[in-house]
Protein backbone atom coordinates (compact mmCIF):
# COMPACT_ATOMS: atom_id res chain seq x y z
CA UNK A 1 0.00 0.00 0.00
CA UNK A 2 1.43 3.35 -0.94
CA UNK A 3 0.68 6.77 0.46
CA UNK A 4 0.21 8.29 -3.00
CA UNK A 5 -1.99 11.30 -3.01
CA UNK A 6 -5.43 10.61 -4.46
CA UNK A 7 -6.20 12.82 -7.44
CA UNK A 8 -9.56 12.09 -8.97
CA UNK A 9 -13.05 13.54 -9.42
CA UNK A 10 -13.91 13.43 -5.74
CA UNK A 11 -15.21 16.54 -3.98
CA UNK A 12 -16.03 16.81 -0.30
CA UNK A 13 -17.47 19.41 2.01
CA UNK A 14 -17.49 19.50 5.80
CA UNK A 15 -19.25 21.91 8.12
CA UNK A 16 -17.83 22.79 11.55
CA UNK A 17 -19.49 24.37 14.55
CA UNK A 18 -22.44 23.24 16.61
CA UNK A 19 -25.58 21.34 15.74
CA UNK A 20 -28.53 20.94 18.08
CA UNK A 21 -30.93 18.33 16.64
CA UNK A 22 -34.56 19.32 16.26
CA UNK A 23 -36.65 17.61 18.95
CA UNK A 24 -38.83 15.90 16.38
CA UNK A 25 -35.95 14.30 14.48
CA UNK A 26 -35.31 11.40 16.88
CA UNK A 27 -38.97 10.39 16.82
CA UNK A 28 -39.27 10.41 13.05
CA UNK A 29 -40.88 7.18 11.86
CA UNK A 30 -38.95 7.47 8.61
CA UNK A 31 -35.50 8.24 9.94
CA UNK A 32 -33.24 10.30 7.73
CA UNK A 33 -29.60 11.20 8.05
CA UNK A 34 -27.05 13.48 6.45
CA UNK A 35 -26.56 11.03 3.59
CA UNK A 36 -30.20 10.64 2.64
CA UNK A 37 -31.08 14.30 3.12
CA UNK A 38 -28.16 15.46 1.00
CA UNK A 39 -29.03 12.97 -1.73
CA UNK A 40 -32.69 13.91 -1.77
CA UNK A 41 -31.99 17.63 -1.80
CA UNK A 42 -29.47 17.25 -4.62
CA UNK A 43 -32.03 15.28 -6.56
CA UNK A 44 -34.72 17.88 -6.01
CA UNK A 45 -32.40 20.63 -7.22
CA UNK A 46 -31.30 18.70 -10.29
CA UNK A 47 -27.69 18.44 -9.11
CA UNK A 48 -27.68 14.67 -8.87
CA UNK A 49 -29.60 11.96 -10.65
CA UNK A 50 -33.07 11.40 -9.31
CA UNK A 51 -33.29 8.16 -11.19
CA UNK A 52 -31.12 5.40 -9.86
CA UNK A 53 -30.33 4.26 -13.37
CA UNK A 54 -28.08 7.23 -13.91
CA UNK A 55 -30.12 8.69 -16.73
CA UNK A 56 -30.04 12.42 -17.12
CA UNK A 57 -27.29 14.97 -16.88
CA UNK A 58 -26.10 15.67 -13.39
CA UNK A 59 -23.19 17.46 -11.80
CA UNK A 60 -22.34 14.80 -9.24
CA UNK A 61 -23.12 11.34 -7.98
CA UNK A 62 -23.48 10.58 -4.30
CA UNK A 63 -20.57 8.91 -2.52
CA UNK A 64 -20.98 9.12 1.22
CA UNK A 65 -21.84 11.35 4.16
CA UNK A 66 -21.77 11.43 7.91
CA UNK A 67 -22.90 13.53 10.81
CA UNK A 68 -21.65 14.18 14.31
CA UNK A 69 -22.54 11.49 16.80
CA UNK A 70 -22.50 13.87 19.72
CA UNK A 71 -22.84 17.57 20.35
CA UNK A 72 -19.17 17.82 21.22
CA UNK A 73 -17.81 17.09 17.77
CA UNK A 74 -16.80 20.21 15.88
CA UNK A 75 -17.38 18.59 12.49
CA UNK A 76 -21.15 18.48 12.45
CA UNK A 77 -21.42 16.87 9.04
CA UNK A 78 -19.47 15.87 5.94
CA UNK A 79 -20.39 14.91 2.41
CA UNK A 80 -18.49 13.20 -0.41
CA UNK A 81 -19.49 13.16 -4.06
CA UNK A 82 -18.02 12.06 -7.36
CA UNK A 83 -18.18 14.90 -9.85
CA UNK A 84 -19.33 14.19 -13.36
CA UNK A 85 -17.30 15.53 -16.24
CA UNK A 86 -18.23 19.06 -17.15
CA UNK A 87 -16.80 21.85 -19.23
CA UNK A 88 -18.26 24.43 -16.88
CA UNK A 89 -17.30 25.69 -13.46
CA UNK A 90 -17.04 23.20 -10.62
CA UNK A 91 -20.37 23.03 -8.73
CA UNK A 92 -18.94 24.41 -5.51
CA UNK A 93 -21.85 26.71 -4.64
CA UNK A 94 -24.39 23.88 -5.00
CA UNK A 95 -22.16 21.58 -2.95
CA UNK A 96 -21.95 23.93 0.00
CA UNK A 97 -25.63 24.88 -0.25
CA UNK A 98 -26.68 21.23 -0.36
CA UNK A 99 -24.56 20.35 2.67
CA UNK A 100 -25.75 23.38 4.63
CA UNK A 101 -29.43 22.83 3.92
CA UNK A 102 -29.21 19.10 4.64
CA UNK A 103 -27.76 19.63 8.09
CA UNK A 104 -30.22 22.43 8.77
CA UNK A 105 -33.00 19.86 8.29
CA UNK A 106 -31.51 17.90 11.17
CA UNK A 107 -31.06 20.69 13.66
CA UNK A 108 -30.25 24.24 14.62
CA UNK A 109 -26.67 24.92 13.67
CA UNK A 110 -24.03 27.54 14.04
CA UNK A 111 -21.39 27.00 11.38
CA UNK A 112 -18.11 28.83 11.91
CA UNK A 113 -15.90 26.96 9.45
CA UNK A 114 -16.28 25.07 6.19
CA UNK A 115 -13.74 22.76 4.60
CA UNK A 116 -13.82 21.45 1.06
CA UNK A 117 -11.77 18.98 -0.94
CA UNK A 118 -11.72 20.49 -4.41
CA UNK A 119 -10.38 18.70 -7.50
CA UNK A 120 -8.70 21.84 -8.81
CA UNK A 121 -7.23 19.84 -11.69
CA UNK A 122 -10.77 19.42 -13.02
CA UNK A 123 -11.64 23.10 -12.78
CA UNK A 124 -12.34 24.81 -16.07
CA UNK A 125 -11.76 28.57 -16.23
CA UNK A 126 -14.54 30.06 -14.14
CA UNK A 127 -14.19 33.79 -14.69
CA UNK A 128 -17.35 34.07 -16.73
CA UNK A 129 -19.28 32.17 -14.12
CA UNK A 130 -17.87 34.27 -11.29
CA UNK A 131 -18.64 37.54 -13.06
CA UNK A 132 -22.14 36.41 -13.92
CA UNK A 133 -23.03 35.45 -10.37
CA UNK A 134 -21.19 38.05 -8.27
CA UNK A 135 -24.07 40.56 -8.33
CA UNK A 136 -26.16 38.20 -6.17
CA UNK A 137 -24.07 39.34 -3.24
CA UNK A 138 -24.21 43.08 -3.85
CA UNK A 139 -27.59 43.23 -2.13
CA UNK A 140 -26.33 41.67 1.10
CA UNK A 141 -26.97 43.53 4.32
CA UNK A 142 -23.81 45.58 4.94
CA UNK A 143 -24.00 44.55 8.57
CA UNK A 144 -23.68 40.90 7.53
CA UNK A 145 -20.13 41.31 6.29
CA UNK A 146 -17.65 38.83 7.80
CA UNK A 147 -13.93 38.29 7.92
CA UNK A 148 -12.46 34.84 7.33
CA UNK A 149 -9.19 33.00 7.12
CA UNK A 150 -8.75 30.86 4.03
CA UNK A 151 -6.21 28.05 4.04
CA UNK A 152 -5.28 26.19 0.88
CA UNK A 153 -3.61 22.82 1.35
CA UNK A 154 -2.70 21.18 -1.95
CA UNK A 155 -1.05 18.29 -0.15
CA UNK A 156 2.23 16.56 -0.64
CA UNK A 157 4.84 18.70 -2.36
CA UNK A 158 2.29 20.32 -4.61
CA UNK A 159 2.72 23.95 -3.74
CA UNK A 160 6.23 24.28 -5.10
CA UNK A 161 7.25 27.89 -5.04
CA UNK A 162 3.72 29.22 -5.07
CA UNK A 163 2.77 31.65 -2.36
CA UNK A 164 -0.37 33.28 -1.10
CA UNK A 165 0.55 36.35 -3.14
CA UNK A 166 0.70 34.27 -6.32
CA UNK A 167 -2.74 32.84 -5.65
CA UNK A 168 -4.20 36.28 -4.97
CA UNK A 169 -2.54 37.62 -8.11
CA UNK A 170 -4.32 34.87 -9.96
CA UNK A 171 -7.64 36.44 -8.97
CA UNK A 172 -6.90 39.89 -10.30
CA UNK A 173 -8.50 39.50 -13.71
CA UNK A 174 -11.86 40.77 -12.50
CA UNK A 175 -13.29 42.90 -9.76
CA UNK A 176 -14.33 40.60 -6.98
CA UNK A 177 -16.24 43.14 -4.90
CA UNK A 178 -18.07 42.75 -2.58
CA UNK A 179 -15.59 39.98 -1.75
CA UNK A 180 -12.00 40.77 -0.84
CA UNK A 181 -8.92 38.60 -0.57
CA UNK A 182 -5.40 39.41 0.60
CA UNK A 183 -2.23 37.34 0.93
CA UNK A 184 -0.93 36.41 4.35
CA UNK A 185 2.77 35.68 4.08
CA UNK A 186 3.67 34.64 7.60
CA UNK A 187 0.93 33.68 9.99
CA UNK A 188 0.13 30.39 11.59
CA UNK A 189 -3.31 29.40 10.31
CA UNK A 190 -6.13 28.67 12.74
CA UNK A 191 -7.83 26.27 10.35
CA UNK A 192 -6.10 23.21 11.77
CA UNK A 193 -7.97 23.70 15.02
CA UNK A 194 -11.20 24.99 13.54
CA UNK A 195 -11.51 22.13 11.06
CA UNK A 196 -10.85 19.19 13.33
CA UNK A 197 -11.17 16.46 12.29
CA UNK A 198 -10.16 17.32 8.76
CA UNK A 199 -12.16 15.89 5.89
CA UNK A 200 -9.21 13.81 4.77
CA UNK A 201 -5.78 12.99 6.09
CA UNK A 202 -2.53 11.69 4.69
CA UNK A 203 -4.38 8.94 2.84
CA UNK A 204 -5.69 11.54 0.42
CA UNK A 205 -3.25 14.41 0.70
CA UNK A 206 0.10 12.70 1.26
CA UNK A 207 2.35 13.09 4.28
CA UNK A 208 3.84 16.53 3.70
CA UNK A 209 2.06 19.84 3.70
CA UNK A 210 2.83 23.42 2.83
CA UNK A 211 -0.43 25.30 3.20
CA UNK A 212 -1.09 28.77 1.84
CA UNK A 213 -2.99 31.27 3.98
CA UNK A 214 -5.21 34.13 2.81
CA UNK A 215 -7.34 36.74 4.51
CA UNK A 216 -10.79 37.25 3.06
CA UNK A 217 -13.94 39.26 3.51
CA UNK A 218 -17.32 37.89 2.52
CA UNK A 219 -20.45 40.02 2.11
CA UNK A 220 -22.33 37.48 4.23
CA UNK A 221 -21.72 34.17 5.99
CA UNK A 222 -23.99 32.07 3.82
CA UNK A 223 -23.38 28.83 1.93
CA UNK A 224 -23.72 30.71 -1.34
CA UNK A 225 -21.02 33.22 -0.40
CA UNK A 226 -18.73 30.49 0.95
CA UNK A 227 -19.17 28.48 -2.24
CA UNK A 228 -18.52 31.55 -4.39
CA UNK A 229 -15.34 32.37 -2.48
CA UNK A 230 -14.20 28.78 -2.89
CA UNK A 231 -14.73 29.07 -6.64
CA UNK A 232 -12.70 32.27 -6.63
CA UNK A 233 -9.71 30.85 -4.79
CA UNK A 234 -9.89 27.74 -6.96
CA UNK A 235 -9.52 30.01 -9.95
CA UNK A 236 -6.63 31.78 -8.29
CA UNK A 237 -4.87 28.50 -7.62
CA UNK A 238 -5.31 27.42 -11.20
CA UNK A 239 -3.83 30.67 -12.42
CA UNK A 240 -0.94 30.25 -9.99
CA UNK A 241 -0.18 26.82 -11.36
CA UNK A 242 -1.62 24.70 -8.56
CA UNK A 243 -3.69 22.07 -10.29
CA UNK A 244 -4.34 19.22 -7.92
CA UNK A 245 -6.93 18.17 -5.36
CA UNK A 246 -6.75 20.79 -2.63
CA UNK A 247 -8.16 21.02 0.87
CA UNK A 248 -9.68 24.49 1.26
CA UNK A 249 -10.64 25.70 4.73
CA UNK A 250 -12.66 28.87 5.31
CA UNK A 251 -12.84 29.88 8.95
CA UNK A 252 -14.96 32.79 10.17
CA UNK A 253 -12.87 35.19 12.23
CA UNK A 254 -13.40 38.43 14.10
CA UNK A 255 -12.52 41.49 12.09
CA UNK A 256 -9.00 42.63 12.84
CA UNK A 257 -8.89 45.64 15.10
CA UNK A 258 -8.30 49.10 13.65
CA UNK A 259 -4.64 49.74 13.02
CA UNK A 260 -3.69 46.07 12.92
CA UNK A 261 -2.65 46.14 9.33
CA UNK A 262 -4.18 46.86 6.00
CA UNK A 263 -7.62 45.44 5.34
CA UNK A 264 -8.01 43.08 2.41
CA UNK A 265 -8.57 44.94 -0.81
CA UNK A 266 -11.30 44.03 -3.24
CA UNK A 267 -10.10 43.69 -6.79
Amino acid at each position, binding site marked *: *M*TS*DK*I*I*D*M*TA*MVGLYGTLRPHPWIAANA*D*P*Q*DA*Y*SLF*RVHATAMGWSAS*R*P*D*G*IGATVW*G*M*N*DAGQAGSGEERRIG*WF*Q*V*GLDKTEGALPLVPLVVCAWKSLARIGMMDVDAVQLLVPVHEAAPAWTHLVSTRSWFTTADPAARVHAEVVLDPGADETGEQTSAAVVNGMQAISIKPFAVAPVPDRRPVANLACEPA*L*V*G*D*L*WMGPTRNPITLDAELPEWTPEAIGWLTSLVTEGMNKAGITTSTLISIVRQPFPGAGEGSPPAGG
Partner: protein
Amino acid sequence: MSSSSRGLLAKLKFVFSGALILSVAFTPAAYADQEPSGDDSSISSAQANESKVFNTAGDYVHISNTPPRTASGHGWWENVSSDATLADVTVQLQVLNSGNWVKVGPAGTARVRSGGGAGNRATGRYGCANSLNVSWRSVVDVDLVGYADSPERLYTPSRLLQCGV
Protein backbone atom coordinates in the same frame (compact mmCIF):
# COMPACT_ATOMS: atom_id res chain seq x y z
CA MET B 1 -28.76 -23.89 -18.73
CA SER B 2 -29.57 -21.68 -21.68
CA SER B 3 -30.74 -18.11 -21.35
CA SER B 4 -34.16 -18.99 -22.67
CA SER B 5 -34.68 -21.80 -20.18
CA ARG B 6 -33.62 -19.55 -17.34
CA GLY B 7 -36.16 -17.00 -18.50
CA LEU B 8 -38.88 -19.62 -18.59
CA LEU B 9 -38.11 -20.74 -15.06
CA ALA B 10 -38.27 -17.19 -13.87
CA LYS B 11 -41.71 -16.71 -15.38
CA LEU B 12 -42.94 -19.95 -13.87
CA LYS B 13 -41.66 -18.88 -10.51
CA PHE B 14 -43.76 -15.77 -10.74
CA VAL B 15 -46.85 -17.72 -11.72
CA PHE B 16 -46.57 -20.23 -8.91
CA SER B 17 -45.80 -17.62 -6.33
CA GLY B 18 -49.18 -16.07 -6.88
CA ALA B 19 -47.70 -12.66 -6.23
CA LEU B 20 -46.42 -11.35 -9.48
CA ILE B 21 -44.91 -8.03 -8.67
CA LEU B 22 -43.49 -6.81 -11.89
CA SER B 23 -44.74 -7.70 -15.34
CA VAL B 24 -41.64 -7.14 -17.37
CA ALA B 25 -39.57 -9.30 -19.66
CA PHE B 26 -36.94 -11.29 -17.89
CA THR B 27 -33.46 -10.18 -18.78
CA PRO B 28 -31.02 -13.01 -18.18
CA ALA B 29 -28.28 -11.95 -15.88
CA ALA B 30 -25.83 -14.78 -15.47
CA TYR B 31 -23.81 -13.49 -12.59
CA ALA B 32 -20.72 -15.55 -12.40
CA ASP B 33 -17.35 -14.24 -11.39
CA GLN B 34 -16.98 -12.61 -14.75
CA GLU B 35 -19.41 -10.61 -16.80
CA PRO B 36 -19.13 -9.19 -20.28
CA SER B 37 -18.63 -5.49 -20.52
CA GLY B 38 -21.93 -3.92 -21.34
CA ASP B 39 -24.07 -0.93 -20.79
CA ASP B 40 -23.08 0.60 -17.51
CA SER B 41 -25.76 3.24 -17.57
CA SER B 42 -27.58 1.06 -15.09
CA ILE B 43 -30.93 1.00 -16.81
CA SER B 44 -33.02 -2.10 -16.86
CA SER B 45 -36.37 -2.82 -18.41
CA ALA B 46 -37.97 -2.97 -15.01
CA GLN B 47 -36.74 0.40 -14.00
CA ALA B 48 -37.87 1.94 -17.27
CA ASN B 49 -41.31 0.40 -17.08
CA GLU B 50 -44.14 2.51 -15.72
CA SER B 51 -45.56 -0.54 -13.99
CA LYS B 52 -42.58 -0.76 -11.69
CA VAL B 53 -43.32 -1.15 -8.02
CA PHE B 54 -39.94 -0.17 -6.65
CA ASN B 55 -36.69 1.51 -7.64
CA THR B 56 -33.29 -0.01 -7.15
CA ALA B 57 -30.73 2.62 -6.22
CA GLY B 58 -27.00 2.92 -5.69
CA ASP B 59 -24.34 5.57 -5.45
CA TYR B 60 -21.02 5.88 -7.24
CA VAL B 61 -18.34 3.47 -6.08
CA HIS B 62 -15.76 5.65 -4.35
CA ILE B 63 -12.72 5.59 -2.09
CA SER B 64 -13.69 6.02 1.55
CA ASN B 65 -12.38 9.18 3.16
CA THR B 66 -10.83 7.35 6.09
CA PRO B 67 -7.94 4.87 6.01
CA PRO B 68 -7.24 2.19 5.05
CA ARG B 69 -7.85 2.94 1.39
CA THR B 70 -11.07 1.12 0.59
CA ALA B 71 -13.48 1.08 -2.33
CA SER B 72 -17.06 1.41 -1.20
CA GLY B 73 -20.54 1.58 -2.66
CA HIS B 74 -24.03 1.84 -1.18
CA GLY B 75 -27.34 0.44 -2.35
CA TRP B 76 -30.95 0.87 -1.28
CA TRP B 77 -34.47 0.67 -2.63
CA GLU B 78 -37.39 3.04 -3.01
CA ASN B 79 -40.91 1.72 -2.75
CA VAL B 80 -43.23 2.93 -5.47
CA SER B 81 -46.37 0.86 -5.02
CA SER B 82 -45.58 -2.54 -3.53
CA ASP B 83 -46.94 -3.84 -0.25
CA ALA B 84 -43.49 -4.89 0.90
CA THR B 85 -41.97 -3.11 3.86
CA LEU B 86 -38.57 -4.77 3.83
CA ALA B 87 -36.14 -5.88 1.17
CA ASP B 88 -32.80 -7.62 1.09
CA VAL B 89 -30.42 -5.30 -0.71
CA THR B 90 -27.15 -6.67 -2.05
CA VAL B 91 -24.24 -4.57 -3.28
CA GLN B 92 -21.55 -6.37 -5.27
CA LEU B 93 -18.47 -4.37 -6.27
CA GLN B 94 -16.88 -5.08 -9.63
CA VAL B 95 -13.73 -3.97 -11.45
CA LEU B 96 -13.05 -3.83 -15.16
CA ASN B 97 -10.40 -6.36 -16.07
CA SER B 98 -9.40 -6.86 -19.72
CA GLY B 99 -12.79 -5.70 -20.92
CA ASN B 100 -14.76 -7.81 -18.48
CA TRP B 101 -16.46 -6.79 -15.27
CA VAL B 102 -15.24 -9.05 -12.50
CA LYS B 103 -16.68 -9.13 -9.02
CA VAL B 104 -14.32 -8.43 -6.14
CA GLY B 105 -14.88 -9.31 -2.54
CA PRO B 106 -18.03 -10.52 -0.89
CA ALA B 107 -21.28 -8.70 -1.55
CA GLY B 108 -22.63 -6.42 1.13
CA THR B 109 -26.15 -7.32 2.15
CA ALA B 110 -28.71 -5.72 4.44
CA ARG B 111 -32.43 -6.19 5.12
CA VAL B 112 -33.74 -2.64 5.08
CA ARG B 113 -36.79 -0.43 4.78
CA SER B 114 -37.27 1.61 1.65
CA GLY B 115 -36.05 5.11 1.02
CA GLY B 116 -32.34 4.87 1.71
CA GLY B 117 -32.65 6.76 4.97
CA ALA B 118 -30.68 6.27 8.15
CA GLY B 119 -29.74 2.62 8.62
CA ASN B 120 -31.52 1.59 5.47
CA ARG B 121 -28.62 1.15 3.07
CA ALA B 122 -26.40 -1.81 2.24
CA THR B 123 -22.68 -1.30 1.71
CA GLY B 124 -20.18 -3.19 -0.38
CA ARG B 125 -16.48 -2.71 0.48
CA TYR B 126 -13.13 -3.89 -0.76
CA GLY B 127 -9.69 -2.95 0.52
CA CYS B 128 -7.39 -1.53 -2.15
CA ALA B 129 -4.22 -3.54 -2.73
CA ASN B 130 -2.40 -0.63 -4.36
CA SER B 131 -3.03 2.78 -5.89
CA LEU B 132 -3.32 1.75 -9.54
CA ASN B 133 -6.11 3.32 -11.57
CA VAL B 134 -8.95 0.84 -12.00
CA SER B 135 -12.55 1.21 -13.22
CA TRP B 136 -15.13 0.26 -10.62
CA ARG B 137 -18.88 -0.13 -10.52
CA SER B 138 -21.42 -1.87 -8.34
CA VAL B 139 -24.31 -4.18 -9.03
CA VAL B 140 -27.25 -3.61 -6.73
CA ASP B 141 -29.92 -6.28 -6.34
CA VAL B 142 -33.15 -5.90 -4.38
CA ASP B 143 -35.26 -8.81 -3.22
CA LEU B 144 -38.55 -7.83 -1.62
CA VAL B 145 -39.15 -9.81 1.56
CA GLY B 146 -42.27 -11.95 1.22
CA TYR B 147 -42.99 -10.94 -2.35
CA ALA B 148 -41.71 -12.08 -5.69
CA ASP B 149 -40.02 -9.47 -7.78
CA SER B 150 -38.21 -9.11 -11.03
CA PRO B 151 -34.57 -10.15 -11.44
CA GLU B 152 -33.36 -6.84 -12.76
CA ARG B 153 -30.29 -5.35 -11.17
CA LEU B 154 -28.83 -1.89 -11.10
CA TYR B 155 -25.42 -1.26 -12.63
CA THR B 156 -23.95 1.96 -11.31
CA PRO B 157 -21.85 4.13 -13.63
CA SER B 158 -18.20 3.20 -14.03
CA ARG B 159 -15.75 5.29 -11.96
CA LEU B 160 -11.98 5.42 -12.32
CA LEU B 161 -10.41 5.08 -8.87
CA GLN B 162 -6.85 4.88 -7.60
CA CYS B 163 -7.63 1.54 -6.05
CA GLY B 164 -6.07 -1.58 -7.48
CA VAL B 165 -7.05 -5.12 -6.57
